[in-house]
């Protein structure tokens, strides 16, 4: 087993464990912190794929900004009491069954899709995730979708300002 494989399994285990803890934690602040751990594990996977830019942007945007806002809301709403209501046993059962079905569909899709077969990830050798190549791809091949998505972000920002503005 090479170091890369050990790291891969460690990061995957960490990601899955943290993701389960996000759901299991009763305290919402703990959930947010476990979610940050998930982001760290996923960034680790990006680094294994040599996508350094994606890894760090994932951390800056998701762990560094969005999760801080989540924490803000949770702290300001004072949700630190364990507010989870007792759900009915049938509700839990129905949730487990439907979730399991969804998982099965997903797994079978991934296993059968021709796009995924016979393909392996480039571990540590691919260089499309480096910032230079990514920037070139974004500003030449994908410039129209890129610019359109920036307009989308702008409209979201303007919308937030309009909603937040005092009368």
């Amino acid at each position, binding site marked *: 087993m090479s*170091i890369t494989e050990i790291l891969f399994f460690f990061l995957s285990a960490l990601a899955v464990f943290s993701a389960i803890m996000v759901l299991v934690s009763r305290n919402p602040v703990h959930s947010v912190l476990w979610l940050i751990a998930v982001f760290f594990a996923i960034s680790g996977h990006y680094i294994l794929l040599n996508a350094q830019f994606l890894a*760090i942007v994932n951390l*800056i945007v998701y*762990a560094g*900004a969005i999760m*801080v806002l989540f924490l803000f809301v949770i702290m300001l709403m004072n949700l630190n009491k364990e507010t989870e209501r007792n759900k009915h046993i049938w509700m839990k059962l129905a949730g487990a069954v439907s979730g399991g079905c969804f998982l099965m569909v997903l797994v079978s899709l991934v296993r059968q899709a021709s796009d995924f077969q016979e393909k392996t990830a480039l571990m540590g050798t691919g260089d499309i995730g480096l910032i230079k190549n990514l920037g070139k791809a974004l500003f030449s091949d994908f410039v129209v979708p890129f610019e359109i998505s920036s307009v989308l972000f702008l409209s979201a920002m303007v919308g937030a300002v309009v909603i937040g503005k005092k009368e």
Partner: protein
Amino acid sequence: MTLLAFDWALLIEKLVLIAVIVFSSLGIALYTTFAERKVAAILQDRPGPNRAGPFGLLQPFADGLKLMMKEEIIPNTSNKVLFILGPGLAMTAALMTCAVIPWSSHVELFDRKIELQIADINIGILYVFGVVSMGVYGIMIGGWASNNKFSLMAALRGASQAISYELAMGLSLIAVLMLSGSLSLKTIVGEQMADGNFWNIVYQPLGFLIFFVCALAECNRTPFDLPEAENELNFGYHQEYSSMKLGFYLFAEYVNMIMSSAVMACLYFGGYDIPFLDESTLAPNIAAILGVGALLTKIVIFIFIFMWIRWTIPRFRYDQLMNLGWKTMIPLALANMLITGAVILWRAGG
């Protein structure tokens, strides 16, 4: 990634480098606390700490010993795990920045070329940004876990301040990146050292000013030390902390100061470049040692300016802080970015 293929010599080399850099940062931080008190004393025309050892030089050790000997109090209404995690996160985030800072050029030892930088990664400055944005969690988690209204208010203030000023900081940085065309700190320093190029401060005076103000805000230094505004919030987010946990929070601030000074020196003041001297004429080892000296000198000057500002300028009010960040810093940084881009285009096209 030769590290993963187990190049043991490289592994040992990097471990030694990490240990040296982390411990020397901590040592410098220790003496920065002493320098802070001395500078304050000089600016206020009093002798300052002068009892422990010659010129009071042993004072930081006395302080550290005092902090460690104090009783460890964990409030029983606090969230214990997060209460302990908070100061640890603050310290970790503060120290992690040192991984990408090029402390000097390379030394040649035992037939090996050793780069005096822990990792020259392709995204160096973004890594610094990622770590800085993690630093917020130390404050937020500590403040929230204390289960104290003042701590929570201070934590929220600190976090919103950090987020607001991160934006202007990032925008002012983009101008530097456009000049150097790389995110790696080593390349940015190399560009400034190259023949015929000046330090970035010559091209980016406004950008540096914005970056400096934002660095003050990110380090929670006066005039932006609202998270620990004593007269409004008692002691800020670390009010409930005692003993070494408090020490970690206070210490993390000084480590942050050192790291942001180092980043500023690398981005705008040529890093380990010695002005008016061509390093390539010297033997590599001597050049490396002189380079470390040059970078440390720049760091010390920045730290002194940080302290000078702290003991001279009064604190902002919270709304003034937010106005300055959002209505002055961000537009200025945007204008700076546009002008830099336009000039680069004009020069490239003309």
